[in-house]
């Protein structure tokens, strides 16, 4: 595949069978809900198919050929993930069901051991529910407190507030998203981590929206924990990734007890397995982890900088077009270099769910609602927003159709 310059989107689209399907009424599918989940290239679908057709087996235990092949493919994915985010070793990569489970793993394991009464956990107002609720549960269990970094009217975090939070010597963890799933804001995690580490406080980065769309290097960033999901980056559902710095992981108690996470089990005591297996109790999602390797290969072939550039182009175009539509309120930073390929908006008094229904008539799949970010919705003082989000296979022509559907909504609602 070509490695430089603009993406060959026509060629990329050929790799995604679903983009050829027709919706009711013969409409072409225009998929603009990529922040929720992306479509899957044939290579990923084939990898899963191949596993079930040819070497389906449980892993890590049996010595027969199928088990060896499956174990090899499973562990090969771990190597690819480690390389993709530049982890120091495969021991730092734990497979979970999704990013949510990855964050919960940290809250239940590291959090229970390290957070106590009157301690503080700092998060921000842009967080997804998956980076709020686990900390609420931990805080109420331990008598700890949750503190929020506010967001300003343009969607940037209030760094002064953050700095003030860090003045307290009770802060035990900072947990922030690297990219807002609603506003698209790219959060300055390098700066957040630098400030936090000066006080010796570890940082968890929720990278569910960033790793799929830009180059992310855990060593350069310096985060202590990072969570993301395969299905938002061309991979299958049911696979999440937790990265944890080895020196922290070594001290963490196990999360789920069971098979595969043990070395020896006796009647009243157990010796736990080595890293990272200690944190992967039970048979994992073998097929989908193997499928995820094909997704990483696909993105590596394109190059993450080109993925990012393509999305910046689309976002710039979408913002230009949508700001020309009467009655539109746009959320998030105006500067496209500060945001990912996510465009949230409202139009007149049309509720996002009504808008999504009208969009659907045109084959346009957008998201409407609170996007699992109700704290942010309250901050923006809206019940819901509509959201279009882009990926490597989207085109400017699709954005034109999306804008046309917006005009149709204005006609129906007489705006």
């Amino acid at each position, binding site marked *: 595949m070509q490695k430089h310059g603009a993406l060959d989107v026509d060629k990329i689209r050929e790799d995604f069978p679903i983009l050829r399907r027709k919706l009711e009424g013969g409409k072409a599918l225009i998929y603009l809900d990529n922040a929720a989940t992306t479509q899957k290239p044939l290579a990923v679908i084939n990898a899963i198919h191949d596993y079930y057709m040819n070497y389906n087996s449980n892993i890590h235990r049996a010595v027969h050929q199928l088990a060896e092949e499956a174990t090899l493919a499973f562990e090969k994915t771990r190597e690819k993930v480690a390389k993709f985010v530049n982890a120091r070793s495969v021991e730092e990569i734990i497979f979970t069901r999704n990013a949510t489970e990855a964050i919960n793993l940290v809250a239940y394991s590291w959090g229970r051991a390290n957070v106590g009464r009157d301690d503080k956990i700092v998060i921000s107002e842009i967080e997804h529910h998956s980076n709020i609720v686990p900390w609420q549960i931990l805080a109420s269990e331990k008598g700890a407190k949750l503190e929020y970094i506010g967001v300003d009217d343009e969607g940037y975090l209030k760094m002064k507030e953050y700095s003030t939070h860090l003045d307290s010597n009770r802060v035990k963890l900072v947990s922030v998203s690297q990219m807002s799933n609603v506003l698209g804001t790219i959060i300055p995690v390098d700066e957040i981590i630098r400030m936090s580490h000066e006080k010796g406080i570890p940082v968890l980065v929720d990278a569910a929206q960033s790793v799929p769309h830009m180059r992310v290097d855990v060593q350069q960033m310096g985060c202590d924990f990072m969570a993301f999901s395969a299905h938002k980056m061309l991979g299958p559902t049911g696979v999440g990734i937790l990265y944890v710095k080895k020196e922290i992981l070594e001290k963490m108690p196990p999360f789920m007890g069971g098979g595969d996470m043990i070395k020896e089990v006796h009647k009243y005591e157990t010796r736990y397995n080595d890293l990272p297996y200690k944190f992967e109790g039970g048979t994992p999602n073998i097929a989908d982890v193997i499928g995820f390797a094909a997704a990483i290969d696909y993105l590596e072939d394109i190059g993450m900088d080109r993925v990012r550039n393509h999305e910046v182009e689309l976002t710039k175009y979408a913002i230009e077009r949508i700001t020309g539509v009467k009655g539109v309120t746009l959320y998030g930073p105006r500067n496209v270099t500060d945001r990912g390929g996510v465009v949230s908006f409202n139009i007149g008094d049309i509720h996002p*769910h009504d808008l999504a229904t009208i969009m659907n*008539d045109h084959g346009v799949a957008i998201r409407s*609602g609170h996007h699992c970010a109700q704290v942010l919705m309250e901050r923006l003082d809206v019940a819901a927003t509509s959201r279009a989000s882009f990926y490597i296979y989207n085109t400017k022509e699709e954005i034109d159709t999306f804008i046309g559907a917006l005009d149709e909504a204005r006609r129906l609602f007489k705006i």
Partner: protein
Amino acid sequence: MSDDIYREIILDHYRNPRNKGKLPDADVSIHDSNPLCGDEIDMHLKVDGSTIKDIKFEGRGCAISQASASMLTEMVLGKPLTSVKDLSKDDILENIGLTSLGPARIKCALLSLKVLKLGMVKYYSDRDPDSAKKLQDDSKGL
């Protein structure tokens, strides 16, 4: 399809809702929401004997949920409170003229009925627990 949904009457009830607001001396008030959409409805009822003497709703959400609530208040005002138990999904959809909604949007249309039925059960459970239990069992789609 959207042309069939977003007709003049739906937009009229969405923008000029009937019986919307608070009811300070309500005999029963109840709130529910649709977690999928975040639509919210509060229903307030004033009951005289067994008749719905006054009804108000508060809420926010899509045109379908809010228009449906507005139309429902008009439909039941002055009727016996127990008659609410007999209202079915189809009664509501016919009332608002949306019989071909998909599974996701149907929940928007039916939220207000769900809240009203919960309100009816709550009203009687405070006064006559046995008949409340029976109303709950008999009530369609609760």
